[in-house]
């Protein structure tokens, strides 16, 4: 623990923040800066590693160690660091293009290994830094500079993808909801292995209003299905029931509260969390937010270091001279 409790200011670097006015990244940054002090971890033991894209400027604005790396590869660099330095707390900051397009391979393999990384995926459903092309999460038919007649790609659902990749912690939040995002960050920090947090993030320049339905006071009450472990899954107007083995969103007026599905984030079977993830697609009529899945599995870095420590405990630390002199040897007089 640091000698004196740190504050938000302690985590704010002297760099001028250079996102566009109104960008959702501002509130995510502010939430993170306010959250970090409660971890009680000295600043020097926290590292933010990002790829390329608007979101990847994030590390510059935090008074911790940080690396703004190359497009899509942040999870690889972060993995090497986290595995070799288990004393550090390592965050990965990425976006929908960075994590799901150019870096898709690294994301899924990092999740399946369960490397001790907290991955924040800022999903704005557009390429911002390259000025407005469709991304792997853009809805089909989207008109952009590179798709003037409408994009033809079927989008990824980042939550479904992460669950398919054996992720042990998968959650979703919204940039503007500081309280909710803070809760999710807290749970992710407490999780032992990889944590993937999808954050709906508004890009006011190239995809303004993409998430209005889950942000506007008029609509969000109905749209947001809150996932709280041990609690019924519902929005202000709708709830989740099981019908013929499938999950279904129904109006609360038509069901008893006791018929609603009680959320179990610790369910070993990923099929349940996957079914939750399928409730929202490109259309955001009903969007589960919160922790889809949070199960225990040994972190990859601890497995790697345990293997090293066990062999040393069993056989003693390696002796270089013994190694070089091993095998068939002979003496020349």
């Amino acid at each position: 623990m640091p000698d004196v409790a740190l504050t938000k200011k302690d985590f704010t670097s002297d760099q001028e923040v250079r996102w566009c006015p109104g960008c959702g990244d501002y509130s995510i940054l502010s939430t993170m800066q306010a959250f970090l002090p409660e971890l009680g971890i000295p600043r020097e033991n926290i590292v933010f590693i990002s790829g390329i894209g608007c979101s990847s400027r994030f590390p510059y604005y935090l008074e911790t160690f940080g690396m703004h790396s190359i497009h899509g590869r942040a999870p690889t660099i972060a993995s090497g660091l986290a595995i070799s330095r288990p004393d550090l707390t390592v965050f990965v900051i990425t976006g929908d293009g960075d994590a799901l397009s150019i870096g898709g391979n690294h994301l899924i393999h990092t999740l399946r290994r369960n490397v001790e990384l907290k991955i924040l995926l800022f999903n704005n459903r557009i390429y911002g830094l390259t000025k407005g092309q469709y991304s792997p999460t853009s809805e089909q038919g989207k008109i952009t500079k590179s798709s003037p007649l409408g994009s033809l790609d079927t989008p990824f659902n980042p939550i479904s993808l992460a669950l398919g990749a054996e992720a042990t912690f998968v959650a979703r939040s919204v940039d503007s909801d500081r309280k909710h995002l803070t809760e999710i960050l807290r749970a992710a920090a407490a999780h032992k292995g990889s944590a993937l947090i999808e954050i709906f993030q508004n890009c006011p320049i190239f995809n303004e209003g993409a998430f209005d339905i889950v942000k506007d006071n008029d609509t969000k009450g109905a749209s947001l299905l809150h996932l709280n472990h041990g609690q019924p899954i519902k929005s202000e107007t709708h709830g989740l029931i099981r019908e013929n083995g499938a999950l279904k969103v129904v109006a609360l007026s038509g069901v008893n509260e006791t018929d609603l599905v009680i959320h179990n984030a610790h369910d070993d079977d990923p099929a349940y969390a996957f079914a939750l993830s399928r409730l929202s697609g490109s259309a955001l009529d009903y969007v589960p937010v919160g922790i889809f899945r949070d199960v225990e599995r040994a972190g990859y870095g601890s497995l790697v270091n345990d293997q090293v420590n066990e062999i040393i405990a069993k056989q003693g630390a390696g002796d270089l001279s013994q190694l070089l002199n091993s095998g068939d040897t002979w003496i020349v007089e």
Partner: protein
Amino acid sequence: MTKPVVSLAQVTIRFAGDSGDGMQLTGDRFTMDTASLGNDLSTLPNFPAEIRAPAGTVLGVSSFQLHFADHHVQTPGDAPDVLVAMNPAALKANIKDVARGATIIVDKDEFTTRNLAKVGYETNPLDDGSLESYKVHAVGLTSLTVAALSELSLSRKDAERSKNMFALGLLTWMYHRPTESTEIFLKAKFANKPDILEANLLAYRTGWNYGETTEDFSVTYDIAKAQMPPGKYRNISGNSAMAYGLIAASQRSGLKLFLGSYPITPASDILHELSKHKKFGVISFQAEDEIAAIGSALGASYGGALGITTTSGPGVTLKSEMIGLGVMLELPLIIIDVQRGGPSTGLPTKTEQADLLQAMFGRNGESPVAVIAPSHASDCFAIALEAARIATTYRVPVFILSDGYIANGSEPWKIPDIDSLPDMRVEFAKTQEDFLPYLRDPKTLARPWAIPGTKGIEHRIGGLEKADKTGEISYEPANHDLMVRARAAKVAGIEVPDLVVEDPSGDATVLVLGWGSTFGPISAAIEGLRNDGERVAQAHLRYLNPFPKNLGEVLNKYPKVIVPEMNLGQLAMLLRAQFLKDVISFNQVRGLPFTTAELMETTMGVLHA
């Protein structure tokens, strides 16, 4: 009755068979037994990329060549004195390399009409007279092995699989090799398979006894010990020596060894070897791809480990962007490229030196890195230590350009004394006020190695251009110019030893200048020429970037400089560009090392032009 013993100065044996016949194992064992006898030696494994190519085809032939002698050996030998051919395909694939008068031992059981037809023999070479100028021993290796194992409860197929041990036993007898270590090896290898162990031992001993009793072999051969500096020796391949060198670098620097690697021929054996040595604190991370492999290594370096990635040419192309990031971040990083035939997938199991320019320039922007190359198999140990020295002292990516020939070939290695290895301890940046992450050391021009976990020096780095000293993002024109030149000056200023020229007559006018794995063949050719009374100088480059400081002077001293390379003239291009010296390029890209004969002939041509 003891058979007469003929003393020989040197022998080259090539074992050839199907890729499933166990020729590499047979060659390895004969090598180990030869090494322990005190001969000097050099080996050349040569195998197809397919794990089990179609049986009995020329395509599927795998071979292992071993040159051993009572004197210093530089190469695995140009032409075999003895060819062991396990089937017609092996004979067909190798006969062109065998000089007339040489000995050929074949498994006559495999010379069936069907097998002959498969490789296009219209008549049986064993009785059509085409091998008359060779000493042919047609031995029923298969039938003799099966007969010897008839008492064991093995299927015929399993029994036949031991025929390589029969052949090994026979050759072991012919050349007076000791049998103990192979027996110990087999007992360890098949400890859990007593049936197979018994079969192999029996076949091995039967092969030995066959030589002793049959009239087909009337003499045996003896090769005296070579004169080698006193000390303790072991036989070692390039890839093993590289792995040991990396562990030694980790131990001597006190840095944790982190290997990020993706399997690729012919580099995978370094990954395998390092993975065995976790008790040295080694972390070997088999990544999802080449990019993740180097990314993890760079991440580990950032955290204060010795970050290493191992690959071959196709992998280097994928890693290029991350190497560029390493240049920008100015962190230590070791990239080991075990070169193979290219471009593209090329010739995965064959050797080549055609990645030099890729290592030098294969990135966007002005992106200088250090490039060094081992000269022979056991030199990989020293080169790994040297790469770690340069990477950690100058905080720069360092390429090691090994190749398939060095990686898989083996030779006796005088085991170094640990205390003779350099002290390679490094200093990380310490807690301080107003830390400047890009403030350069005036001597090395390196920036501080500032690792996470150090209080008070929290800072941000990245691939965007850095401002001098502060390391903040900078788009200033003058700053970019300054930083590009600073990175170049840092690499250009790496201290490397002067190039040593061997010119015994002192008045040679022709210099043969090589780099990397051509050292053995060039040295053998030079030795041959000098024995013939020719005056010729030799030098070999270990440092390709930066070049030794005296290189220009050396090039200017010799009117004619021959540069043999297993590429189309990549070093020659660098020399011409940097020194305006019109060197004479000699190139071949056959996937095999130069032969001594062709190097002698070319040099003679220049000497007497």
